[in-house]
């Protein structure tokens, strides 16, 4: 029974650490499906986390924090769009720039505004998204098997966790069942065809990039005002890149993206749980190896040894209307 308890704890932790990955991964999905590579997910998440925690600390409202996080991330997304759609700049370069600007300015502004060495004040009560107990969680707790799963694993997370998982079917529906989604995918594969049909390539890509901003803002807000009680400097710690890895791992599809994020989240949760302890079955594993595993797996996948990851065909290429 103890084993089941430990596994429940790990799965519970998996859900919590997967959520920022999932939100960032879906964020990247919109942009990359529209043909705009985005390695600036990390920066947008970080900026969102900082803006969210700052606004929540000043206003005392988690909702105002959430709005600030989303607006800030959308602003950075628009900068990326301005550089890579309007000015046809290099999308990778632009993403790198956004990561640096976000990393530097969150620390400088955080120190100047709050004088706590880059932290924002600790949030509590209304300024955070607390856990939500789903109806019947307490009543069902004693039921065998399903009881603990429902009350421990599914119930008791913050609002943004449920939003993140609901975004998966929503994104699937948008991409594969709406006219907008069809055009979005088309613009990532063959923008000239979309242009010929009389649809603005730039406007479509801008809308995709704004979606990316909104979702990466949610990811940042989750980090600083739901999972943690405030912003700490460099709190994304590479999550934006793990999300990017998950996106490739999922071959740019929403439902596999969720499973990829859960897998990478599970690795992280398990490595925290088993830190310094021997793992079941495999024995002692250096924690650094587990930390590097998402990246190693992605490289192996990219190399084409476990299926082939084919990116959207027009990805990374600025669209030039024929002259």
């Amino acid at each position, binding site marked *: 029974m103890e084993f089941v308890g430990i596994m429940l704890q790990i799965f519970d932790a998996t859900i919590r650490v997967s959520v920022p990955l999932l939100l960032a991964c879906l964020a990247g999905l919109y942009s990359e499906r529209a043909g705009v*590579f985005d*390695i600036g997910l990390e920066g947008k998440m970080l900026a969102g986390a900082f803006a969210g925690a700052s606004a929540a600390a000043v206003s005392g409202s988690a909702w105002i924090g959430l709005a600030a996080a989303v607006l800030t991330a959308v602003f950075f997304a628009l*900068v990326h769009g*301005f*550089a*890579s759609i*309007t*000015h*046809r*700049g*290099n*999308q*990778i*370069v*632009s993403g*790198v*720039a*956004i*990561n*640096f*600007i*976000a*990393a*530097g*300015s969150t*620390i*400088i*502004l955080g*120190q*100047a505004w709050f004088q706590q060495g880059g932290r924002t004040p600790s949030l509590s009560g209304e300024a955070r998204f607390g856990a939500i107990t789903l109806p019947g969680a307490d009543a069902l707790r004693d039921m065998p098997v399903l009881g603990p799963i429902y009350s421990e694993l599914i119930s008791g997370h913050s609002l943004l966790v449920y939003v993140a998982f609901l975004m998966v079917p929503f994104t699937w529906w948008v991409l594969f069942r709406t006219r907008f989604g069809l055009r979005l995918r088309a613009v990532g594969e063959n923008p000239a065809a979309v242009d010929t049909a009389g649809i603005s390539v730039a406007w479509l890509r801008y809308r995709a990039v704004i979606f990316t901003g909104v979702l990466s803002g949610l990811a940042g807000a989750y980090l600083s005002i739901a999972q943690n009680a405030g912003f700490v400097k460099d709190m994304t710690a*590479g999550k934006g*890149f793990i999300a*990017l*890895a998950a996106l*490739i791992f999922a071959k740019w599809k929403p439902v596999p993206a969720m499973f990829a994020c859960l897998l990478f989240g599970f690795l992280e949760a398990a490595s925290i749980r088993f830190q310094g302890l021997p793992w079941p079955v495999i024995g002692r594993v*250096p924690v*650094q*190896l587990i*930390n*590097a595993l998402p*990246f*190693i797996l*992605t*490289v192996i996948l*990219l*190399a*084409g040894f476990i299926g082939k990851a084919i*990116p959207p065909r027009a990805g990374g290429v600025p669209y*030039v*209307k024929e*002259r």
Partner: protein
Amino acid sequence: MSTPYAKLPGWADYGLIPIVNLLVAFLVAGVVVLLVGENPLSAAVILIDGAFGNGQNIAYTLYYATNFIFTGLAVAVAFHSGLFNIGGEGQAYIAGLGVALVCLTFDAILPWWLTFPLAIVAAAAVGALWALIPAYLQAKRGSHIVITTIMFNFIAASAMVYLLVDVLKPAGSMAPQTRDFLDGAQLPKMGWLLESLGLAVRSAPLNISFLLALLMAFAVWVLIWRTKLGYEMRTFGFSPKAARYAGISESRIIVVAMMISGGLAGMMALNPIMGDQHRVALDFVAGAGFVGIAVALMGRSHPAGIVPAAILFGVLYQGGAELAFEMPNISRDMIVIIQGLVILFAGALEHMFRAPIQAVFASFSPRSVGVAAPKGEGA
């Protein structure tokens, strides 16, 4: 926006536009300084004084510039072949392992002038090998090199933490770093150069790897513009189709260019390890690999541009450290913002000011800006 980018005179293309981009980057950085409640002009004065005020400051500025010359050249060599090596950070970090092995083996037996060449070879070899895997995967399996090099940065970081914590750390020590090197693995300082000009240098870590960096800048110029391989690399970077048609092997160029790039990035490890800290510690690269991207973009991938751009970033690092003392609201992270802004304006938005500048030129002398100039610079 759909007019082709016409040809500007060389000095405008390589001088005016980069300076305009840089000025805009600094203007935006000035706004950030205003936001934190300091005066941007006095910040700039402190920064310049902190970088050039006395001999020691100049020596520190050049010490930092050494790192950025190596990483800037690394990014530039890949750029010329149409590749984006974002993995300089990881290649330099893992190259520290090569330097460590040479230094720990020979520091008691050999003098520095024998250890140094061995360490150069080891650093370049390890850096090149770390770049070889992404290069091979790009050349043979079509994996996107940007993504794989990013992933390799993280893998390098994890590997080095593991090695320093569990393998290289001497028994009984708490800090995750190697033992201190003996005299045989310590590079001579270059303070005498500035002292001969009458400047007091004291303990600044400027060392002879600065000369190695300048030598490498020259070597890269020779490679890119004076050798067959360099010509092939530029051809491939300019038009992979034309290169293929001319019988240039795609995989060979990708692999060779990336290995040269990784080797240059790897040599960066020599400067802090053998020249300053005399041991391998966690995170000794400290972002220099990423600064290389900004340096290469600003220097337009030409060694003659990269060296001044690297010195500019040396100024920002050293001056920024002094600035942090004087203005408590501004820490060294200000440099990270400036770096990001330089990458944004000199890299991603490099064409933004081109059209207005061309319009100005055209209004002066329409002939100097023949709009559909046949020799238009494509990239």
